[in-house]
């Protein structure tokens, strides 16, 4: 699984390019939390399989650049402890640990988790009060904060230039930015058979189709297909989170259903939910359905007519 960590290097590099040292600090803090808990309470040598490192880095990538480091650390701790170890360790968990960590942070610290700085200014400047002490309110900084493209679209009906979205020079979480880099890394993983291409493909298809149709109905309020695909955390979620092998279906048909479900929920939450971004909840909701999808899509055993019932 270290190759998955390796494939995240360009994504991390991209976030550092756009958000400066803050990006590195946040990803480092989240990974430290994840690895520490895995080391303390996980099975022997569990660090070696690389799964905790993936969780930490992915969690870091879903956080805003200006989030206080202790929160990122706490997210990593929560993700591994309550997302993975409590179920019995690697391979036993139902929910994606990184996303569970993020969901916890979102619920606990909604303001910090939705304050996004816009790219620009000195590269060296921190994008928020990263070094705020635990449970203290962050000191106001002079960083310009702004809404994400999805927020702009939802609450102000303002579009964002597509080239900015594709390249990543917009406000947002660390890994929410450069769609192209994530796609290239995902393609590499798919070729190496480390992820099932059916899951991102079905998410993209569903979001593009649904988003496109709704855009045609009301072009002012809703963005087009490409806007939907390249804004927010969709790329990172579809390529790295939804394809987590442990929490996605084992059958090929199941993978398609899983992806369609995620795509549908993303569109519904984005357009009609209270939040402007829905990738995280869409994936977590579909994670919960994976056992049922698996049961419903068991292959027909050669030479038998009945489909086996899972115990």
């Amino acid at each position, binding site marked *: 699984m270290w190759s998955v960590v390796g494939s995240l290097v360009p994504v991390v590099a991209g976030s550092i390019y756009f958000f400066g040292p803050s990006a590195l600090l946040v990803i480092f803090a989240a990974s430290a939390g994840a690895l520490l808990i895995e080391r303390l309470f996980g099975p022997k040598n569990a660090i070696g*399989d690389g*799964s905790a490192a993936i969780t930490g880095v992915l969690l870091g990538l879903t956080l805003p650049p200006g989030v206080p480091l202790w929160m990122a650390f706490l997210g990593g701790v929560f993700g591994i402890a309550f997302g993975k170890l409590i179920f019995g*360790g*690697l*391979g*036993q968990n139902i929910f994606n640990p990184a996303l569970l960590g993020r969901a916890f942070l979102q619920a606990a610290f909604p303001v910090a988790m939705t304050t996004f700085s816009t790219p620009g200014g000195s590269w060296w400047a921190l994008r928020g009060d990263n070094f705020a002490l635990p449970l203290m309110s962050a000191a106001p900084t002079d960083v310009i904060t702004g809404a994400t493209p999805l927020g702009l679209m939802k609450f102000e009906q303002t579009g964002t230039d597509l080239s900015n979205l594709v390249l990543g020079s917009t406000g947002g979480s660390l890994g929410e930015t450069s769609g192209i880099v994530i796609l290239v890394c995902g393609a590499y993983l798919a070729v190496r*058979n480390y992820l*099932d291409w059916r899951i991102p493909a079905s998410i993209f298809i569903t979001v593009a189709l649904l988003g496109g149709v709704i855009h045609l109905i009301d072009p002012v309020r809703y963005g087009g297909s490409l806007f939907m695909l390249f804004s927010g955390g969709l790329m990172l979620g579809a390529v790295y989170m939804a394809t987590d*092998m*442990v929490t*996605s*279906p*084992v*059958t*090929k048909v199941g993978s398609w259903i899983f992806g369609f479900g995620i795509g549908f929920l993303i569109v519904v939450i984005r357009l009609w939910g209270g939040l402007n971004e829905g990738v995280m909840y869409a994936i977590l909701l579909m994670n919960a359905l994976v056992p049922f999808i698996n049961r419903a899509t*068991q*292959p*027909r*055993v*050669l*030479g*038998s007519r009945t489909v*086996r*019932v*899972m*115990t």
Partner: protein
Amino acid sequence: MIDQGNLEFRHGVHPPELKELTARLPIRRMPYPTEVVLPLSQHTGKPAKPIVRVGDRVERGDKVAEADGYVSSPVHASAAGTVTDIGLWAHPNGSYSEAVRITVEPFSAQATRPRIVPDWHDLSAKEIISAVQDAGVVGLGGAAFPTHVKLSPPKEAKIDVLLINGCECEPYLTTDHRTMAEYPKRVHLGIRIMMRCLGVDRAMIGIEKNKPDAIEAIKATLPTDLDVTVHPLTVKYPQGAEKMLIKALLDREVPSGKLPLHVGVIVQNVASVATIAEVFETGLPLVERIVTLTGRGVQRPSNLIVPVGTKVRDLIDACGGLTPDAREIVFGGPMMGASVANLDAPVLKGTTGVVVLTDAECTPPETYPCIRCGHCLDTCPVFLNPQLLGSLAKVGRYEEMEPNHLADCMLCGCCSYVCPSNIPLSQLFQVAKVALSKQKRAA
């Protein structure tokens, strides 16, 4: 009418073939060992009953044990000599079982008793089958199912095609390959005899495409008066499994728990077909077979004619001995074969090959927890869910594996081969199968 399409089944794997070690080596005869050991249980079914006593002198080809019942097969002396013991001896399956030990006469001509070879044309199907039974012919592809049982299917089964299995999809092995390349006429004679016994008009020979010389040889000698066709198959493991071959060539599915004859098919391996022909060519019963001794752990990999009952020790000595880094001896291929710990274990009628693996090939990789990637589901040729079965087997919930079609698993090892966490799935399934059958017997 030779099929050029891509004939194959779905799923499966393609491990490194490693056949180049012996694929071009002509078959040669190995010298007689000083002792042969003939286990009474070399076939599927009841063990044979010994009919010789300690001290008896036997010629090569003499019967030393007779079939005990219908699904059983006689055993013949594979070399002239004296019976020194009838007792327990190491069997390649790891147990000790009843065996007849014969000390081979040195400098013997190993000529057989003069015998009258009946012309098979004049025999009825029944007489041919009893001659085959009397010669102790069993399937040489590994399972060693008595051939006479296969040749007399129940009347209600309507057999319309005979499939000849020349796939040899296991890595390393070249027994069938060399048989087809060197004795194509014998193969065709065997097919002719089998077709006569079964009363079928159609026979199809399936050969994987990685044996072009065998395909050429078999094609060049095709009979003109019979409907026999050659079908090159996609190189893929386990193409040689009966159910996979039937699926690839005829697109028929053998119902779960049933035999190929339920879909009107009899499958026979080329080496067994050649042996049937040999019985009627020479009159000699099954006393020797072609074995591939190969692997990086052996000095001179070879294709050998080996007397049944030759100890692995003698077989390896005949090929220059082991290399310094030899580690494990496997009977059969590396995918489905079983490792043998005792060098005294003899070659059986069903031993297709002996592979000697080196240190580098058998260091067990570290095992990780299952991450439910589903790669095993994507390779299982019978469409099982090895992921589920594996997690049940790991905690010993064997009863729950049965409704999940454990019985359909043929232990081909594709799931273990692709598992990124290196979980020994097919070994777990084998343990589960044994435990379940023990439970049933106890109940």
